């Protein structure tokens, strides 16, 4: 055991048991998996991805490139760093060889997100960040302070003193002051992982993994969406190793990480430690480890660095004769071999400037530092402390206060690597990429760091080049003989650290993945046993099967009811737009292909809309309510886009028109009551209304009241049958629906769904926009020249009708198809070719495709609608539809296959 008394913030009064690679160990609350493993003397964590070499823990936190583990219990999670996994009782983990395993069972943990706003966001609760947060809070800002570790303090964990006090007291006091401020939110265990425009920062809070018994109703992880007036990046720096031969063995670690492990977890990473550094900070780490009982030899090539005990030399290699592959000795450039169990490396520090870089902050190379640091400042972003390349404590505190610190002379010697075999000098320990790989890339002609990165894969792994990126640039520059600044570095992109997919999905899963829109009758449909279909976000009743019925049987029954008795549909999802104003008719004339301004109040007209490209985008009926008021019905899917379309034209093109548009889709529930007996039902429903053909003709409407409830009746038919649409406000929808069912009971009124609606309309050749059209179909293609006004000088799309391609006689046109075998229903989507007994070799010329296809109760046979090249001229011809291996002959007909004369519109002759 390498746990040292008197160090660390773990709770030694309690013991936790965990399993790693099949063996049981113990640790304490406050440990990470890495600290507990090191405390138990476990140094080898896994093997490397390419060369299968043993790998240990290289750093104390998220910058570690080697200590990857697979969690198995409490729930499988791949590719976590042992350094960031909180130890809990019963944890089961294993080391990885570079690839993780996904759980086979669903993750039932909760994830959520939370928006918050502040004047100042401070990322990082080290000395600079704490001061920045305190300064902002004291001036009255709302402050959010996030830090990715469980406790604040950052690098203030060693023996530093601030204003004569122990640094940790300063941390505690500052946190206490911030906590007392209701406008300060402190988020520990929270990693700011992405920085976007306008002060938008995303941060992942790990809320429950450290708890012995995570509550089920609390999210495991939360994505904070922080909108800040000002972002203070105080994210510190990552220590940079010096690359030496065989630098990938377990037991080789960054110097500051060893110090961190000692002070946070009471883990002394070795007894015989060699510290190889070209920077001053590691001398502090050496002193702390020595004080904790280790024997430490410091190797530093800089003349006069450290005390007299420091050896002025360089480490050029490591050796291992240990079973776990851990380092057992290092070799110096003067030939000395120093036995040891641990090698700590430090070549200086790389500012953690990711959050600055995410918003396109330019990084510039600082040759004294041997690192890239923030360059030109950005509006709304301040980088302070080590993240800004300011490494002295006084400087960090000054920057935290918003002051400019005194410049401090730099003493780092920038050494990327020492002498040795480049094939065993690892630059990216996770990708097994070496100095030799970089040399090969340069030899192959690569001159850009991006190419070198891709050639060598350096920086593409889990750690995204935190410890390797700058070194790779440095070594590449050396090999090319150019300055590092001319090469630059690869781009930092979000996320800063890996984030679970489920955390980003948040609560948008299952039923909340996308809203389900429902009509006022939804409960009734459910009760009635409806089978639903998704129509955009709507749940619409597709059919209502009776016991023993499949869809076909149910739809045949529903169709028959509507054609011979009476049926009723919930058509409430149709879009409805209230169009008001003296120029309402002018607007609609410009939007619809036909004339709307000539419609009389009390009357209804069908209309078609096109885009400027002349293609049909929507259709529906228009009711003129008043001189200056229309009610426009759109398709279900068209409700939102068509309102947007109208608003766009009105506001951006014709603002002079005195018109206003209001969506009333949910205001009105609409129920088509359809069939030869519909007059009986409507007559009973509104007994004071004369429902005779003479008094209430086709395509007219009126408002009335039933039991004091305003009701609108309109004679509109999407089936060819005698029909009324009953509209009522949504409050009274359920009651009116039930009333219609009660009154229709004597006529066996039959609720029908969207499938029956589709069959009935298809029998009449009425197209469904989006099913019988696909954005390439004009009104003329649909055989609807009659809906295109010849009188109006212009309307949206009109000019496009005159383009050459629109005049092509071989355009695809809507026709009916009757399979020669009346029992064969063509699959919708089937392609159509010339009549043939055998297909020629591909490519086979195609004539079009089947858009709608049904079995018709009224016809006693199947039929289809199709878009066919030059289809209108082909009526009467036979064509072939390949279905599976079969070649199905079909006859082209007009698109109206049922009651083409329209005799049923006013009810069965003789009735009324």
């Amino acid at each position, binding site marked *: 055991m390498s746990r040292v008394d008197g160090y660390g913030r773990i709770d030694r009064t309690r013991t936790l048991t965990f399993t790693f690679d099949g063996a049981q160990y113990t640790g304490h609350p406050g440990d990470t998996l890495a600290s507990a493993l090191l405390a138990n003397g476990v140094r080898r964590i896994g*093997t490397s*991805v390419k060369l299968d070499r043993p790998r240990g823990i290289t750093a104390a936190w998220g910058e570690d490139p080697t200590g990857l583990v697979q969690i198995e219990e409490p729930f*499988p*999670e*791949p*590719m976590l760093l042992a350094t960031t996994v909180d130890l809990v009782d019963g944890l089961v983990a294993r080391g990885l*060889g*570079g*690839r*993780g*395993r*996904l*759980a086979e069972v669903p*993750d039932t943990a909760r994830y959520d997100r939370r928006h918050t706003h502040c004047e100042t966001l401070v990322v990082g609760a080290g000395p600079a960040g704490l001061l920045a947060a305190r300064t902002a809070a004291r001036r009255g800002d709302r402050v959010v302070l996030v830090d990715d570790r469980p406790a604040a303090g950052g690098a203030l964990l060693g023996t530093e003193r601030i204003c004569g006090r122990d640094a940790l007291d300063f941390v505690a006091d500052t946190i206490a002051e911030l906590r007392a401020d209701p406008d300060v939110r402190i988020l520990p265990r929270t990693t700011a992982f992405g920085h*976007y425009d306008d002060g*938008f920062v*995303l941060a992942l809070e790990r809320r429950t993994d450290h708890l012995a018994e995570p509550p089920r109703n609390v999210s495991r992880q939360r994505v904070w969406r922080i909108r800040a007036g000002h972002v203070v990046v105080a994210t510190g720096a990552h220590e940079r190793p010096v690359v030496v031969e065989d630098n990938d063995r377990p037991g080789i670690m960054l110097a500051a990480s060893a110090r961190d492990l000692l002070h946070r977890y009471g883990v002394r990473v070795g007894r015989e430690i060699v510290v190889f550094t070209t920077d001053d900070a590691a001398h502090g780490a050496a002193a702390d480890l020595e004080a904790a009982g280790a024997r430490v030899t410091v190797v530093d090539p800089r003349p006069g660095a450290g005390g007299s005990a420091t050896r002025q030399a360089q480490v050029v290699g490591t050796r291992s004769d240990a079973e776990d592959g851990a380092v057992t000795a290092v070799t110096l450039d003067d030939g000395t071999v120093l036995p040891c169990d641990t090698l700590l490396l430090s070549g200086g520090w790389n500012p953690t400037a990711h959050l600055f870089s995410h918003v396109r902050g330019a990084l510039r190379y600082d040759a004294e530092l041997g690192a890239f640091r923030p360059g030109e400042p950005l509006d709304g972003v301040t980088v302070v402390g080590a993240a800004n390349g300011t490494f002295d404590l006084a400087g960090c505190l000054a920057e935290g206060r918003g002051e400019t610190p005194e410049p401090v002379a730099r003493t780092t010697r920038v050494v990327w690597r020492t002498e040795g075999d480049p094939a065993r000098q690892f630059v990216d320990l996770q990708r097994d990429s070496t100095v030799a790989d970089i040399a090969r890339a340069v*030899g*192959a*002609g*690569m001159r*850009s760091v*991006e*190419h070198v990165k*891709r050639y060598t894969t350096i920086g593409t792994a889990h750690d*995204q080049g935190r410890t390797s990126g700058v070194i790779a640039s440095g070594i590449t520059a050396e090999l090319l003989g150019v300055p590092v600044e001319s090469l630059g570095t690869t781009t930092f*992109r*979000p*996320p800063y650290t*890996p*984030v*679970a*997919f489920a955390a*980003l*999905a948040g609560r*948008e*899963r*299952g039923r909340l993945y*996308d809203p*389900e829109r429902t009509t006022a009758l939804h409960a009734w449909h459910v009760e009635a046993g409806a089978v639903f*279909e998704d129509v955009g976000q709507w749940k619409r009743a597709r059919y209502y099967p009776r016991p023993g019925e499949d869809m076909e049987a149910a739809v045949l029954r529903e169709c028959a009811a509507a054609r011979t008795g009476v049926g009723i549909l919930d058509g409430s999802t149709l879009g409805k737009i209230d169009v008001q104003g003296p120029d309402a008719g002018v607007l609609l004339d410009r939007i619809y292909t036909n004339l709307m301004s000539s419609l009389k109040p009390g009357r209804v007209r069908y209309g078609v809309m096109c885009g400027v*490209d002349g293609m049909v985008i929507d259709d529906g009926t228009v009711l003129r309510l008043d001189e200056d008021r229309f009610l426009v019905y759109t398709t279900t899917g068209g409700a939102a886009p068509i309102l947007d379309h109208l608003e766009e034209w009105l506001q951006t093109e014709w603002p002079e028109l005195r018109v206003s548009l209001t969506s009333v889709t949910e205001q009105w529930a609409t129920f088509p009551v359809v069939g030869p007996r519909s007059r009986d039902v409507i007559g009973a429903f509104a007994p004071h209304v004369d429902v005779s053909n003479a008094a209430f003709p086709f395509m007219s409407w009126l408002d009335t009241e039933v039991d004091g409830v305003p009701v609108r009746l309109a004679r509109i038919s999407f089936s060819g049958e005698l029909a009324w649409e009953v509209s009522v406000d949504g409050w009274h929808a359920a009651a009116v629906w039930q009333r219609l069912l009660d009154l229709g009971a004597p006529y066996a009124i039959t609720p029908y769904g969207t499938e029956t609606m589709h069959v009935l309309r298809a029998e009449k050749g009425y197209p469904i926009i*989006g*099913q019988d059209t*696909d*954005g390439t179909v004009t009104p003329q293609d649909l055989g609807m020249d009659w809906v295109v006004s010849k009188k109006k000088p212009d309307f949206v799309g009109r000019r496009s009708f005159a383009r050459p*391609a*629109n005049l092509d006689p071989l355009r695809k046109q809507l026709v009916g198809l009757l399979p020669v075998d009346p029992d064969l229903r063509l*699959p*919708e*989507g*089937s392609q159509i070719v010339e009549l043939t007994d055998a*297909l020629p*070799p*591909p*490519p*086979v010329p*195609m004539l079009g*495709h089947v858009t709608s296809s049904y079995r018709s109760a009224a016809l006693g046979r199947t039929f289809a609608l199709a878009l066919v090249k030059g289809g209108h001229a082909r009526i009467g011809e036979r064509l072939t539809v*390949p279905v599976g291996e079969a070649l199905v002959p079909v006859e082209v007909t007009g698109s109206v296959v049922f009651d083409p004369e329209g005799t049923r519109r006013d009810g069965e002759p003789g009735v009324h």
Partner: protein
Amino acid sequence: MAEQLPEHPDFLWRTPEPKRSYDVVIVGGGGHGLATAHYLAKNHGITNVAVLEKGWLAGGNMARNTTLIRSNYLWDESAAIYEHALQLWEGLEEDLGYPILFSQRGVLNLAHGEQDVRDSVRRVQANRLNGIDAEWLGPDEVAKLCPIVNVSDQIRYPVHGATYQPRAGIAKHDYVAWGFARSADAAGIDLIQDCEVTGFRTDGDRVTGVRTTRGEIACGQVALCAAGHTSVLLDLLGVRAPLQSHPLQALVSELLEPVHPTIVMSNAVHVYVSQAHKGELVMGAGVDAYNGYGQRGAFHIIERQMAAAVELFPVFARAHLLRTWGGIVDVTPDASPIVGHTPYANVYLNCGWGTGGFKATPGLGWCLADTLAHARPHPFLAPFALDRFVTGALVDEHGAAAVAH
């Protein structure tokens, strides 16, 4: 140990100084430009060619795409060029002598609603009649091919089935680009990096020279292969084309043991996933709505993508997003490319591939080289001429390409 990628060759390309003049100047050193150079040399013996790249070779969309290769497009015109490309992909490794890791693992395009099913059957039938491998699969068959897809009818938008193209696949994008580059370089073609085009010298209806940050270069013919930056070049020429450049994002996870044997796309819930050779999940997101040249997009698009992914693939819940990035895609009104003549007699345009440019790379390169060699559009490219927007004869692939990749 995980599966390893093959090593790159010891030598790839020279770093030449630009000459004063070339027979053909290709603007844009991405996949399309490099492939065109390769086929100019290989098929037509034309090697006095420069490829001008403003940054590093293949550093734009070629380095940023999600590497899906398929040819199951709806319309005959699209099917012809993409199928030509797919057939070239099938022999490309041999042609280039470069291990491009072309893995024909098949693509499933999921259908989530009745209209999706109709559109899918329509496309499958069209593909088959065009000689392209395509099948319609029910949910059970989808689950057999890709067991991790949630085909339960209890999800918000249940899977009603899928189209399947077995010959579709993925390839390693850098390897493809570098293979073309190495081949072109070996044939004597100059690949010139850090060379941004800043203007054109014109003489009547011809362009006689290209002005660059590395001096002026005289040219016999010019091919514009600049993808998202095409409009910037066309502005220099005073030519207008119906192009809008948008950010398109993609992302990868960490390395995972194999879980996903094929490629799954879903237009309805906007997701597209494959698992690359080393084990990372590669996913494409939707296009950001606004115009942008920033090679980055908005994060809510990624979040929505993740929600869709976890909904369709519950096992992905604890996979981790490792890296996101963005490319710049040039989108046309009909979601089909624009290739062919410009108002300048010796300048050819190749753009508007939107989200689908990678898969076309060899096919486009082959046909554009042929176009340059014969100074007329290759028959596969003819339908994609700029003048289709005047006649109205569009090749509207929106239905098939809403999430194209």
